[in-house]
Every structure is written in C-alpha cells, then in structure tokens.
C-alpha cells in the first residue's frame, strides 16, 4: 500500500478509530490508581478536543486542562498597543498574520485601528510582507511577528530575503514566544491566590508543530526534572486519542517518559536548518509578559543586536510605551491554566467577561478555556 494525500486527512480523523481508541483508553484507565489531569498545551489540540468531542469519549478519571493556547491569545495588551501605535504613524504600513485581527489591546484591536484609517494589512504568509515592502518603497513596512517555534523560522526566512534584496523599508516587531518556558512556569510558579506552588498538571500533550521545527528534545526536562510525562501528539483527533492512550499507559505501567506519537512528522532533533535560521537572527529576550500568566523568564525572542536596524521596537523606541498594563484584577486565568480553578469559579465569567468583550486571555480566543465553557455551557 502506498500513501495517498487523502489518507493523511481521513485516516487520522476516522470516527471508528477514534471510538476504538476511546475503548482502549477506558480499559487502560481502570488500572489507574488515581485520576489524571492532562494538559494539552496548545490551542490546536484544544480545538480538536472540542470539535470532535473527545472529552466526552474519555472516562471520568481523565481530565483535560486547557493550556495557554496559542501565541495570539497570550499576547499582552502592551504589545498590541505597540502595533496599534505603529500602525498610526505616517507612512507606516503594519503587516501581520490574519490571526491578530480581533485581539484587543487597551486602545482596541488592529481591526479597530484599521477602521480608524490606519494602514493595517492582514496576510496569510510573511512572504506577503516582502511583496508589500517591494511595492511601497516610500513607506515603512513593519511586520508584527507572532508565533511559537513553529512560526519563528518563517520570520527568519523573511528577514533573510529582505537582507538579500537589500530592502531598507522593512522593519520587524518581534513577539515570538517559546513553549517549554511557559510549561515550566505553569509547574514552577507560585499560585498568587493560594500562595503555594500549586498546580494539578500530571502530564502534558506536547504541541505537534512546535516540535516539527524544534524537535521532541525540548521537552526532555519534563519527565526528568519535573516528573511529568510528555507525549508529543499530532493535531488530528486520532493523534490526540492515541497520545492520551500512551500517557495513560505510562501511568498504569509506572513509567515517566518523553514519547512521540506524531512520528510521521516529529523527530527528536527537529528541523535543524530551521533552528539554525532562528539562531542566526534571534536571541532570548529575558522577561516577556504573557496575558494571564505575567512575566515569564526567557519565554520570548528578540532580534540580535547585529540586526538592530531592522528592529521597529528600537527605531520607534521613543513612542512605544514601556509601562506594564495589569491583567484584570478579577481574572483568574492563571489558576485556570494550572488546573486549580474552573472558569465558572471566576466572578465575572459570562457577565463582565464574554467572548465579545474578553477581560482575560482565556476568553480571547474560541480555544481558551473560558470561551469554551461559555460556548459549550460547562460541558467541557
């Protein structure tokens, strides 16, 4: 049998296979000594779990904790305000990926900026920014770069092309964030509401496409130093179910390891060429604020000093505010992300905080835990 493109879609979404795996999980879960909470770190997995109703197929002893989601949802207001301000400068075209359209900053979203006359363009690929820069030589084009390890190399590739073509009018505002650091933070950080190192995360489903680039190796510390098993799983429902089965087996067999379910696309080392490209242009930023989680050490990247002249944050330093904007006082996203609270325990859930007017990160995207509860009425 040879592989067809269709197989890569259909076979990994096959309802019968999903149910069959659910049965195996159910049987395996009977051997568990206690219930386990599995955090799916990535919004892509949350999306699959909700769309295919996977939680409802699992025994009660397995609970999902929805993770920080996606690089868009955790973007703090400060950074969106930067984009908003940059977009309003004369002769600036602000270019960013379509995902950023609706995310609110303190002045509004980028969509609002555009409706007020700013030149904001939402593109599918960073390559489109190159085209816009070439076509508008007398404008300054600023690429507002977002994304996890999955997306960072594409910004690097854009930079490569810009340099090769000697483009002078393309600048970058870098907001790339990294996954292992936030996972560590969720385990390590002091829970502000109970003032202890509390979290209920027993195991992780590792983001698939982050590891296509960065390799499975980035999760090595979790089984070892934190005693949390990790299974890197694909985004299709069959992948997620097989990933859960592998985790449950680890618990029932008293193992604690890093395993890869998504072997068709993830290797231990990842894509070394893409990693080299990232290293060429980027370095660790120090602290970066995540909406809902606060400042996390080493969790983001910035341009290396050699490329300072491309850095919009430096070029426009005098007009970009540095002050932190506090997360909403009543928002308990941090606790929710550690599995310590359910969205319904938040005082403003579905009253002051709704998907149409989110106060915290968990309500920003439809994949956030609060938004999911809002939509599915707490069945998640």
């Amino acid at each position, binding site marked *: 049998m040879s*592989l067809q493109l269709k197989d890569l879609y259909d076979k990994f979404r096959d309802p019968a296979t*999903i149910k069959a*795996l659910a049965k195996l999980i159910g049987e395996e879960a009977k051997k568990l000594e206690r219930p386990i909470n599995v955090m799916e770190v990535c919004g892509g997995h949350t*999306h699959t779990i909700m769309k295919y109703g996977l939680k409802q197929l699992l025994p009660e002893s397995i609970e999902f904790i929805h993770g920080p989601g996606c690089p868009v949802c955790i973007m703090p207001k400060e950074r969106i305000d930067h984009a908003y301000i940059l977009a309003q400068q004369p002769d600036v075209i602000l270019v960013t990926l*379509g995902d950023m359209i609706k995310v609110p900053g303190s002045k509004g979203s980028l969509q609002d900026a555009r409706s007020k006359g700013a030149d904001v363009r939402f593109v*599918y690929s960073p390559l489109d920014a190159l085209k816009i820069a070439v076509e508008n030589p007398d404008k300054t084009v600023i690429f507002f770069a977002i994304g996890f390890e999955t997306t960072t190399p*594409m910004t690097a590739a854009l930079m490569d092309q810009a340099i090769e073509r000697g483009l002078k009018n393309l600048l970058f505002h870098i907001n790339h964030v990294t996954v292992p650091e936030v996972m560590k933070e969720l385990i390590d950080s002091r829970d502000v509401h109970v003032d202890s190192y509390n979290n209920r995360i027993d195991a992780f489903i590792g983001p698939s*496409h982050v590891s296509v680039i960065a390799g499975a190796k980035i999760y090595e510390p979790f089984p070892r130093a934190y005693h949390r098993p990790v299974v890197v799983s694909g985004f299709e429902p069959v992948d997620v179910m097989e990933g859960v089965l592998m985790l449950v087996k680890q618990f029932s067999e008293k193992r604690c390891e890093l395993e890869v379910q998504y072997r*068709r696309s993830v290797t231990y080392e990842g894509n070394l*060429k893409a990693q080299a490209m990232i290293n060429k242009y980027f370095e660790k930023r120090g602290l970066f604020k995540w909406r809902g989680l606060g400042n996390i050490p080493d969790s983001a990247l910035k341009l290396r000093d050699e490329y300072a002249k491309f850095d919009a944050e430096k070029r426009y330093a005098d007009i970009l505010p540095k002050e932190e904007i506090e997360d909403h006082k009543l928002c308990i996203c941090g606790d929710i992300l550690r599995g310590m609270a359910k969205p319904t325990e938040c005082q403003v859930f579905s009253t002051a905080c709704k998907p149409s007017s989110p106060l915290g990160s968990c309500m920003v995207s439809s994949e956030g835990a609060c938004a999911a509860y809002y939509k599915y009425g707490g069945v998640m």
Partner: protein
Amino acid sequence: MCLSIPSKVVEVNKDEVTAIVDTMGVKRKVGIDFIADEVEEGDYVLIHIGYAMNIIDEEDALESIKVYQEILEKMDEEQRQEVQESMVKESDNCPNGGVT
C-alpha cells in the same frame, strides 16, 4: 495558529527555493527554505503560513494507519457497530477566524 496542512509536492524549483504543492486539489507556491536539500517531487509536506516545514515520513504514516486497522479488526462485531453508529460532527475550523 500552529496548524498546518498536509500537501503533496508537485514541482520543485531549487533556484527559487520554492515548490508547487497540491493541497487536496488546490495548487500553490510555497517556500522550501527549511527542506531545500532533501525535498523531491511526490513528497508529502506540512504547510504552515506559506512554507513547507518538513517532509512527512511516509513509512511512519503507513505504520500508524496499519496499527489503527489492527485495533479495529481486533474489536468484536458488536463493539464495531457501536463505534460506527457514533459518528463525529464536523464544524468549522478555528471559529475565531484564525489562519489555521
């Protein structure tokens, strides 16, 4: 936003560092900067925001499919029926309007 789409490579242009890929009937040009040395026509790749991220390992994909097949075959008829009856609902992709 980290989603990406499996596609088949139809044509490789090494000088341009691009390839034409077929995503279930839709053809488009993507960057192959990260796989330029290895990629060949007929390969399956994952596309993320205009770039191919990797080459999907065919053998591994087939191996997984085989394992799932065996799991299904091992189930008795009654279980299989039960499974078949509970079809899964499809809905939109990222409802937040994200590029997925």
